[in-house]
């Protein structure tokens, strides 16, 4: 700025007093000289007007609101304390009961999870899972009402365990008894049946001449038994009547 002299004040002196003039702390002869210089100086006059205008523009800027979670983030970044109570108003913090605090804490924990669950893709997945589970239970014959009425006391569970064990053992023993009976009967039949004579070997040439289309005798027999196997016993058409002693008859009746 040029150091021009107008009305007893230089431009650099005017520049030094400009802030005080805008703050309205300038008074007396200095203020009069300042105003006189502003009216006559071609440089300082517009500067005063522009500075006043700029100050007015800046006064129109209002204070901006910081983000809601700024304090929370600062505390988390500095002390590492994630204080949930910062989300509530300061006045409510001191008066909040333990139930309110618990509810606030629960809402903080549950809300993010629930927000994720509310998404359509998760809802569809849960629906499909429920549908699959329902079908599986229906196919396996499981009824939820049975489960609901089930006695889950430890004594009842213990009793059910022993009953089930007993049933399994009893079933196993019954199967074993049946096999023993069948085995005895088979042995008895073998013992009471005379040996069957071995069948005669047919001539291969004669068999090949059979063109009737009827199956061979060999085909009508049991395929598991070959020609080379020796028949140990066979039941004739008129088996002989065997008479047992009275003790043997009683034993057989008991077994059957």
């Amino acid at each position, binding site marked *: 700025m040029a150091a021009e002299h107008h009305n007893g004040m230089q431009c650099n002196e005017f520049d030094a007093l400009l802030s005080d003039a805008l703050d309205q702390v300038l008074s007396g002869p200095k203020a009069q000289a300042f105003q006189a210089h502003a009216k006559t100086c071609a440089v300082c006059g517009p500067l005063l007007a522009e500075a006043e205008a700029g100050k007015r523009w800046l006064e129109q800027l*209002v204070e901006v609101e910081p983000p809601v979670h700024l304090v929370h983030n600062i*505390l988390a970044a500095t002390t590492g304390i994630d204080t949930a109570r910062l989300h509530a108003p300061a006045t409510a913090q001191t008066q909040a009961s333990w139930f309110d605090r618990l509810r606030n804490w629960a809402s903080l924990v549950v809300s993010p999870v629930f927000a994720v669950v509310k998404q359509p893709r998760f809802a569809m997945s849960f629906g499909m899972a429920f549908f699959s589970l329902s079908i599986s239970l229906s196919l396996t014959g499981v009824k939820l009402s049975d489960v609901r009425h089930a006695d889950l006391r430890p004594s009842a569970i213990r009793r059910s365990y022993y009953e089930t064990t007993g049933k399994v053992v009893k079933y196993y023993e019954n199967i074993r008894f049946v096999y023993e009976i069948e085995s005895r009967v088979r042995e008895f039949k073998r013992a009471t049946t005379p040996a069957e004579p071995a069948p005669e070997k047919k001539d291969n040439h004669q068999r090949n001449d059979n063109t009737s289309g009827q199956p061979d005798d060999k085909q009508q027999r049991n395929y598991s038994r070959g020609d080379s196997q020796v028949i140990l016993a066979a039941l004739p058409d008129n088996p002989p009547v065997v008479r047992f002693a009275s003790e043997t008859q009683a034993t057989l009746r008991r077994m059957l």
Partner: protein
Amino acid sequence: MEDAQLAAMLVRRCVAGDAAAWEELVQRYNRRIYNICYRFAGSADDAQDLTQEVFIKMYRTLKSYDLERGAFMTWVTTITRNLLVDHFRKTKQDRMTDSLDTAPSEQEDAMPLSDRIPDHGPSPDAHSQSREVGETVQRALQKLSPDLREAVILRDLNDLDYREIATVLKVPEGTVKSRINRGRAELARLLQRTYKQVM
């Protein structure tokens, strides 16, 4: 209790390990620091990050604060200003920022600086207090050089006195006053074309 005394007491409690005192300090000063950062950076996201950085640095260096050397707010503002300068250098905003101090380029000769501020709104008489005016002034503020901008912000938006600003900026009070006056005048010139009716 006076603000400076209360701040000093809170600082002593913080240094002693009182987490509640630190929380109270954050509650008391986060708004002012955020506003300084927002007005200087011009972005809410940058302002939030910078405010967090300021408090992190404050938390680490709280023991170094000396009550005898100045008010707590001056100390906090100094930390803020230093971080803003670092941020400014990192983001290279000085290359994009135009100032009256710098000579205009050839492209800028064809279009004055004030013409590059778009006039989106209707007449200022109707919306002088509107949000649009605030945004326009904020955009004009971003066009100021960093030296002028920080001086204007500290004085007109944060109400610091010249002595405190001089301490923060580490320049004499006369320089502070000169920068404030030039900053205000520059801002008015930038907005003059936009709102001729008001001017």
